[in-house]
């Protein structure tokens, strides 16, 4: 285990938490990682990104194919928000909440605006997590998961 890489990984995690990209739920995922599932966190995040791509496409379609069905949009976003929340993706989750507020208000322009932000946060987080997991892999197994508790 390279101590420098491990420290960089911890620092990056601290920074992602402090900047609100991730929350306590992400730490929960890391605490669940063990010898039986040594890549659990990365697998969870991969599953999330694979599944959310489809949901985001559905939302985008529903937004551009008029007339807008706000109930359907809200339903899609509820699902997307739920899984974002399960991996601790705070900023994404918060944009989802704003989107749903616009759905409730039947505000099409607001929905479109916030949807762009949802996609943006979604993409930004993916990039950051890719870097994070790369660091984790390079640092070695004992650097992540239950062994490293960043508070």
């Amino acid at each position: 285990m390279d101590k420098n890489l491990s420290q960089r990984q911890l620092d990056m995690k601290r920074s992602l938490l402090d900047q609100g990209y991730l929350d306590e739920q992400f730490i929960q995922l890391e605490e669940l990682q063990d010898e039986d599932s040594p890549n659990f966190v990365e697998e969870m995040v991969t599953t999330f990104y694979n599944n959310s791509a489809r949901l985001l496409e559905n939302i985008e379609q529903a937004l551009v194919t008029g007339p807008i069905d706000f109930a359907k949009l809200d339903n899609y976003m509820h699902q997307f928000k739920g899984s974002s929340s399960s991996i601790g993706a705070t900023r994404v989750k918060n944009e989802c909440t704003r989107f749903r507020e616009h759905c409730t208000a039947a505000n099409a322009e607001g929905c479109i605006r916030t949807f762009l932000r949802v996609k943006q946060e979604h993409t930004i987080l993916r990039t950051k997590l890719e870097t994070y997991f790369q660091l984790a892999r390079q640092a070695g197994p004992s650097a992540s998961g239950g062994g490293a508790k960043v508070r």
Partner: protein
Amino acid sequence: MAGRRKPNQSGRYPKKITKYLGMDATSSAKGVMENGEQPHVLAVDDSLTDRKLIEKLLKNSSCKVTTAENGPRALEFLGLGDDQHTNLEGRISKVNLIITDYCMPGMTGYELLKKVKESSIMKEVPVVIMSSENVPTRINKCLEEGAQMFMLKPLKQSDVKKLRCQMMNCRS
């Protein structure tokens, strides 16, 4: 049934506990969950991400887990599917707890709860409802229909520990 059941001197739970655990003691298809046996949980959620999470949470708490992506599949697994005739022939699954998401397309968690509670075979199995939304009317509706507990998503290790305790002790 009320009160706390303790194992007797040989460390085995009395036969009556099978009723609490949702198993008919006279049915040969089911058995007693004995001291040390892993509880079997059926987790129902339409989100793959959430299914992965709940499965890991439960496995880390020494539970055997079966997941289902919707209500009808869950009912099939429980032997309460549409084709009841074939299901009764020994394919009844032994499950100690059902945990289900509330918001699911098609059959909601509430509707699944109702079907379980309507079943003479499965009605004693505790059902826990999960939701990402804290809606008091929704919670009350589920509790009134016989849900054991309501849990807010995303689930954490402390939530599952609570569930584990509930499964090992007697419910009220």
